[in-house]
């Protein structure tokens, strides 16, 4: 088992290195002199020369990359051009908000997607199956930022039930926090619930055709026990792994959801950074998202090895 885990780790390392190369290469896309782009409004030649020296822009590109990588290994993601704060610190301050949104959205996705997938598979070919498929397709097709705007219109503007925007820390006021996060979590969770429903349906259909399910039925077990205890337990394994890999969708969706509901998280940080041309922050966010995704994939692989005895040898 250790060998299997080590093997996956060995594949993940070069990918991580390539992600760092990719993120570093982003700054090569800046049109013209990168020192001028980083200087923003500043046109003083001395200040520009200082920026050039500070960012090692006078050195060859491979050397610049190595210096940047060395900083990265020390946890230095650079300094925000706008606030002057370390990028790592900025990201660390915003990340908990996005993690909370991600967890709540995942809860919504699991609570809706898995039962819907099970019902669709058990009642394959019926109206319930068709309805679940149509809802899932709609969930994938409706842009989540529009769904957010529509929910705000209905729930906040018309009915006045929940706040339309803003964020309160759960440590300050847990109830208010839940009120502000409920709609964003539903918006972000819907798309993932649709994907999860499709995966669960497909995995359940495969599981329901297996011999052990036929044996359980032949043994006279009630259908509920066969479906929930025998088929679902086995079908959930790939669903859990695929759910972990939905992190990318979750982060992409979080950028838009945080923008719609004005939530001060990771996604809002990157959008604000884009408009203030705070390039180190943009790079830092892409890097964290990429490395986070690789780590989550690795975790999913390890979980798979731990959960599936056939992969341990």
């Amino acid at each position: 088992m250790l060998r299997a885990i080590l093997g996956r780790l060995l594949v993940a390392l070069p990918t991580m290195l390539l992600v760092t190369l990719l993120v570093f290469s982003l700054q090569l896309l800046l049109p013209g002199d990168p020192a001028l782009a980083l200087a923003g409004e500043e046109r003083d030649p001395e200040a520009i020369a200082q920026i050039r020296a500070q960012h090692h822009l006078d050195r060859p590109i491979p050397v610049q990359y190595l210096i940047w990588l060395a900083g990265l290994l020390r946890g230095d993601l650079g300094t925000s051009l706008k606030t002057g704060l370390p990028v790592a610190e900025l990201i660390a301050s915003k990340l908990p908000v996005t993690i909370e949104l991600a967890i709540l959205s995942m809860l919504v996705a699991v609570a809706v997607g898995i039962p819907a997938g099970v019902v669709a598979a058990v009642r394959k070919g019926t109206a319930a199956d068709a309805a679940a498929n149509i809802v899932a397709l709609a969930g994938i097709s409706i842009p989540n930022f529009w769904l957010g705007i529509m929910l705000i219109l209905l729930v906040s503007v018309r009915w006045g039930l929940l706040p339309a925007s803003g964020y309160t820390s759960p440590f300050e006021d847990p109830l208010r926090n839940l009120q502000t996060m409920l709609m964003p979590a539903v918006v972000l969770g819907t798309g993932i619930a649709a994907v999860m429903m499709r995966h669960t349906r497909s995995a359940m259909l495969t599981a329901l055709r297996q011999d052990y399910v036929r044996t359980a039925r032949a043994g006279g077990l009630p259908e509920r026990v066969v479906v929930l205890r025998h088929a679902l337990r086995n079908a959930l394994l790939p669903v859990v792994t695929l759910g972990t890999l939905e992190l990318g969708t979750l982060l992409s969706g979080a950028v838009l959801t945080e923008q719609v509901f004005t939530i001060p998280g990771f996604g809002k940080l990157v959008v604000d950074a884009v408009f203030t041309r705070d390039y180190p922050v943009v790079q830092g966010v892409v890097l964290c998202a990429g490395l986070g995704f690789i780590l989550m994939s690795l975790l999913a692989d390890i979980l798979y090895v731990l959960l599936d005895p056939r992969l341990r040898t």
Partner: protein
Amino acid sequence: MAPIERVSSPGARVRRKLARHPAALLGGAVVLLFVAVAIAAPLLAPFDPVKSNWLAVRRPPSAAFWLGTDELGRDILSRLLWGARASLLAGLVSVAIAVGVGVPLGVLAGYVGGWLDALVGRLTDALLACPFLILAIALAAFLGPSLGNAMIAIGVSATPIFIRLARGQTLQVVAEDHVLGARAIGCPHRRILLVYVLPAITAPILVQATLAIAGAIIAEASLSFLGLGQQPPAPSWGSMLNTARSFMTQAPWMAISPGLAIAVVVLAFNLLGDGLRDALDPREP
């Protein structure tokens, strides 16, 4: 004597199988309508989509303005019709970039194998690790906000899926007997790739491209919503939603139609893609 079974052409088989999917046909019809609207927008739009009309600011839907007007008095229907062009263009161009870069790379990686395959594989993993929209935002940020750069950003972000698909399909095709035979008799590599590999992988690429257009339309709308795609005053469904957000209490109609248009078109491409996948699958009867 047993009756001779009529063998239908692959095209006729696909058409017959597609006809059994009413949802896919509906999706196809909506896609055709969307393309027609995008092309004929100058003829169909009742008003100039960018000209302000200060006498008709934030008017609700009426006989004169079917979908109402926006904060500058511009007709929302006209902007919606013109906005279809930005969505169609973004969908087609960015997927063309992804297919144009991804398919040759994937085919070469699968055909040549060895270090090239390993390098392309790791590069694909690295690109796939960066969440689609975050990578597109970063690329659009560094390239500068415009519809053209948004299309490049979306195209680059969608490329790894095509690399992976083309590589996997190529590996399957080159292991088949007729390709092994062609290699054994000394058929040049270029001929094998053009005559055997490319035609065999076209169907799955076509299905993926249809689904990718749906993703690209949402991505363009998302980038325009964030202000990184189509720039004002040019109309785009995403930027219309971005503006609508500021007038939700005063003019809620501004937010309804652009989002509905995105959802309907994306749903249509998804339905068509799902139908094409079944119709082009040789294992399906």
